[in-house]
């Protein structure tokens, strides 16, 4: 089985889906000739031409608005937003249009598309190349939200997203774009949406993470294990609709839960997860659920490793939760 990093796995998924279905097209800033600023779409324009891998003018609103029209026509657009920090000029189109078209047209039209965008910190990008805005989109009814942590999942989830009938926001954790290397089947395959992965089984504390922070959670879990605390670690993979069964089953077993995400704490996705756990597993809880997150400040440049919920902040939360 070939080894790929996440950039290569996503590129492979796009290539295979574009070969399978001529309606699949890629559009965005610098995606064509350059192959994207992270090189995720490298080589696609050579293979599929300028009509299917399109360097657009510099306008996210234009990219997503035209993608809606293309989707209404029956195409399957896979627009790229260069950084998720730059998705906001398209926020109106995504929130008002992409998310609501199926509902407001009684299902006569849909805006089936996959909006790919790099997310998160850890590349010294300051306020505007580091944010994690997933909660804004989870909050918007009508959008599916995915965030893979590794190459194999990235490929399978992207293929599943492209084949899914609904609009998907596909967040790619840029911090591990090239670091998350592993074996990836060369053929097309789907990792089903809304299915989490239990990446480590344990009995004392459930840790929930996704994207780049999964690796920090793995590190903290190993350290906790060395101190006698057994961690069950869940990689959500799809954030919305979340795989609630996997979460509830695990929390019922451990009675304790720590949620890790890069986005600010307040109204982050962790808040929703805690609410869901309270609703569905409250009587099984042995300790208050804990969130280890980014702070309620803009994302800083120099102090990014203080801001991010890295292993050094996850470990004490896991140990305290286990012991309380």
């Amino acid at each position, binding site marked *: 089985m070939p080894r790929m990093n996440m950039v290569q796995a996503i590129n492979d998924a796009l290539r295979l889906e574009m070969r399978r279905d001529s309606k699949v097209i890629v559009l965005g*800033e*610098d995606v*064509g*000739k*350059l*192959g994207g*600023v992270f090189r995720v779409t490298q080589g696609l324009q050579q293979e599929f031409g300028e009509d299917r891998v399109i*360097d657009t*003018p*510099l*306008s996210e*609103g*234009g990219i997503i608005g035209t993608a809606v029209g293309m989707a209404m026509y029956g195409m399957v657009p896979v627009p790229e937003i260069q950084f998720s*920090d*730059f998705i*906001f*000029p398209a926020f109106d189109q995504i929130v008002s249009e992409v998310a609501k078209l199926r509902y407001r047209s009684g299902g006569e039209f849909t805006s089936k598309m996959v909006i790919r965008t790099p997310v998160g910190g850890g590349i*010294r*990008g*300051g*306020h*505007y*190349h580091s944010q994690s805005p997933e909660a804004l989109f989870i909050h918007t009814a009508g959008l599916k939200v995915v965030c893979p942590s590794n190459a194999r999942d990235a490929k399978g989830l992207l293929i599943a997203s492209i084949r899914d009938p609904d609009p998907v926001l596909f967040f790619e954790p840029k911090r591990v774009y090239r670091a998350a290397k592993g074996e990836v089947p060369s053929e097309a395959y789907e990792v089903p949406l809304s299915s989490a992965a239990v990446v480590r089984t344990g009995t004392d504390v459930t840790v929930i993470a996704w994207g780049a922070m999964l690796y920090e959670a793995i590190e903290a879990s190993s350290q906790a294990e060395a101190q006698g605390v057994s961690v069950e670690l869940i990689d959500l993979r799809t954030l919305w609709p979340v795989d609630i069964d996997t979460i509830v089953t695990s929390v019922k077993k451990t009675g304790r839960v720590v949620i890790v995400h890069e986005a600010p*704490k*307040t109204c982050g996705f962790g808040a929703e997860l805690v609410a869901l756990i309270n609703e569905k597993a409250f009587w099984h809880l042995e300790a208050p659920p804990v969130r280890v997150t980014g*702070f*309620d*400040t*803009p994302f*800083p*440049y*120099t*102090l*990014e*490793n*203080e*801001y*991010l919920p*890295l292993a*050094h*902040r996850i*470990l*004490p939360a896991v140990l305290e939760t286990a012991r309380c």
Partner: protein
Amino acid sequence: MATNADQPLSFPADMIRVLRADGTLDPEHDPHLAVDDVVALYRAMMRTRFIDERLVMLQRQGRIGFHIGSLGEEATILGSAWAMRAGDFIFPCYREFGAALLRGMPLQRYLDNMFGNASDNAKGRQMPDHITARDARFGSVSSPIGTQITQAVGFAWAAKLRGDDVVTLVYFGEGSTSSNEFHNGMNFAGVYRVPAVLLCRNNGWAISVPSDQQTATATFAQKGVAYGVHSVRCDGNDLFAVVSATRAAVERAARGDGPTIVEAMTYRMSGHSTSDDPNAYRVDDALAPWRERDPIQRVRSYLIKAGAWDEGRDGELEGEFDREMKQAIAEAEKTPVPSIDSMFADVFESEPWHLREQHQAVVQGPRPQRQH
């Protein structure tokens, strides 16, 4: 109801050029700069380029994380900034550190930003080159494309509402004319006839996308016609033409005749930033004609011809820039990183309970293994 029927419909296809190949000036648009002023601008352009090159080196050595420079665009940036009056105001894009320095931002302040250290006025919160220089009447750099355009129009509008003689200049690249905010900004500027100069640095590229893929129009300036914004184009590698076009736009704004879009034709001689490798999308040959039109070389030839400069003095200048840069770098590099406290300051004017809680938890908690 007033009509706008007096608006011109002609497209600014012609370019203002002043400095001829033979080193003489075309009298039609000659801004009549004093020789001392040309020397001062030459110096400023040389300094900007020197700093640029040094910062690229620092980035390659891993001492700073990033740099986005103005190689080749010095005449556009310094000529336009110089044409602004002391009380006027500049909204930057992200390539205009040279304009901030020209307007008095101390070099040390710039280097403190580049290193993101504790002395940085924005406390190391922003990426390199994302400077703020209120003292220099220069705004605060933000990465998202186009946002500064409407803001500058609002600033200019406020000055007009308050009856103040302030003209506002805003910089953006030609790629930014595709953004929502360009069109909003142009429309509001036109509707309220605000005293603004919208300076489009047409440097040929938006990262890898060439300018002819950004628009179907022949020029970017002509977009002004549709918004009722006066439009001009100038040779952006001709210092005299840039000063002339910008100064005329400032005078027009100050007179109450409203906004101007100036399209300065220049070229991005480097990659988009230190993160970019332009070999992936453009051939080096494209640079050759622009090297011939190097904005600094053209002014140097002019000054030499005017007997106001000799090549030997370039060495002196470089020695001077080298000394000031070495000192500023050494100082910035030895300054510690910002304090944890600084991460929680300035979210609001004072710290609410939730930030106080988070702040205290970090101070009392463990430190990360790596600072970067």
